[in-house]
């Protein structure tokens, strides 16, 4: 994952003139994009709205305008907090949150998502953490997050957050021993087999969109 496979490149060639079709076929819930009526309610309802370089409304317009690079390389979709405010307010009932996640994932899959995007890193660390044992190890998750940019940066981060960690520790809501062994599922192996299979099916399906 991360780099465009040859298969992907072949599949993409035919989309060169129509990013909208590419999104419709390859992005989760992407076939909804064309139904946007450009009212802008999503843009006005967004939690981190002011921090989006392009609002969802604009992203939909850019997709129609064929601005493939600008959309996929944008860090806008990574600003989504999954608050679903746009979804419940959209008069056309577009699953906007899911589309934003879908676009983010697609960009990541193609390897064009912005590097060092903190939310992307968070997502990857979280997922890797949870599939390892089947359950999230909150301590290790937090630590991997802090140390993702290297040892020194991690120590700085950890130090700045130490009062919080201490407070949680005191409230028995953080377990230092989790670093060595945390909660985990019994059937770890089964879960791993299952996920491997799911990913296999998924790439098969993605390849099927020719």
């Amino acid at each position, binding site marked *: 994952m991360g780099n465009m496979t040859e298969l992907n490149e072949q599949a993409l060639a035919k989309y060169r003139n129509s990013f909208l079709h590419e999104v419709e076929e390859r992005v989760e819930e992407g076939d909804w994009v064309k139904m946007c009526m450009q009212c802008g309610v999503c843009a006005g309802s967004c939690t981190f709205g002011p921090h989006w370089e392009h609002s969802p409304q604009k992203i939909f317009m850019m997709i129609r305008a064929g601005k493939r690079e600008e959309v996929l390389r944008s860090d806008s979709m990574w600003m989504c907090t999954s608050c679903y405010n746009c979804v*419940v307010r959209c008069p056309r009932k577009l699953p906007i949150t899911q589309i934003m996640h879908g676009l983010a994932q697609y960009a990541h899959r193609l390897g064009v998502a912005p590097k060092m995007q903190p939310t992307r890193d968070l997502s990857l660390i979280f997922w890797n953490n949870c599939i390892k044992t*089947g359950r999230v190890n909150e301590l290790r998750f937090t630590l991997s997050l802090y140390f993702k940019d290297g040892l020194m940066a991690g120590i700085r981060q950890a130090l700045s957050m130490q009062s919080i960690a201490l407070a949680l520790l005191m409230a028995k809501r953080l377990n230092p021993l989790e670093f060595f062994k945390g909660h985990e599922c019994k*059937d770890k192996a089964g879960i791993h087999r299952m996920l491997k299979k799911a990913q296999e099916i998924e790439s098969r399906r993605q390849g099927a969109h020719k």
Partner: protein
Amino acid sequence: MAKKEYAFYPGCSSQLRGSASNYLVSVNTMCEKLDVKLTPIPDWNCCGASISYAAAGELTRHVMTARNFALAEQHLPGQDIVATCAACWLGGRETKDKLDASSQMMADTNEALKEAGLHYKAEAQMRHMVEVLVEDIGYEEMKKPMVKSLEGAKIAGYVGCQTNRPFGIAGESFENPLYLDKLVETMGGEALTKYEQKVTCCGGSLAFSEPAKSQKQIRDIVESAYDHGAEMIVTPCPLCQANVEIYQSEINRKQGTKLAMPVVYYSQLMAVAYGGNAKQAGLDGQVIPSKKLDEIAAKVVPVATK
């Protein structure tokens, strides 16, 4: 009232010494008083939460959730699955809707589940604990186990996002859901119904990745509670609780504010009203203790006034 039984999906944060472990403690106390039996789904796994989208494809995420469904159907047949975490519940609802709507996705999911020796029959329903309270038990029944009132404690009901959107509790509006206020009033507290940050997002998991932006949200949420004279914030969501409670010290440190607003779960209010002590109500898990709630919990009530 006959005992109600549910397949319980606690979620990662509720585990022992997890960030929402006190939530689980209070839920257990509350359910015991309401004669609700929660049986954890054997060997349940993480739902993937909302944030795993970059790494995990759609099918992969549905498969993770479907494993829990399949386990529940196998071990606790006929029981609705109940989650206490907003994201777990939302993820479950999304997976269920998607699989119900797409036979292709259902077939693919079961193909993957087969690797873990499981099969999902699409029978189990995904419920939130709040739905169980509001729909299965009702406000009147919720009053019955009460041994003390919250004595007009001023409480800002912070519903947040994912318990409210996109599914929400049936019959409630997305812009101004009322169940949390009703619950507070049922327990004898004073619901600050004009609290305008009721459904504002706390930043969710982006509290980790975009701390400055999220802390601005959290500051608004807490300051508005102060503006309305709140003694505490109550929430149904573990991530809301954690974000809004634990980052107050960070905000104070960076911005020179003096925020110290307790943030509790609805289940803690109920556990206290039902006569639970501070430990049984998970109050010892507060980073910012609620003096008011601690006092009420400590109060000894004469037996059987109700």
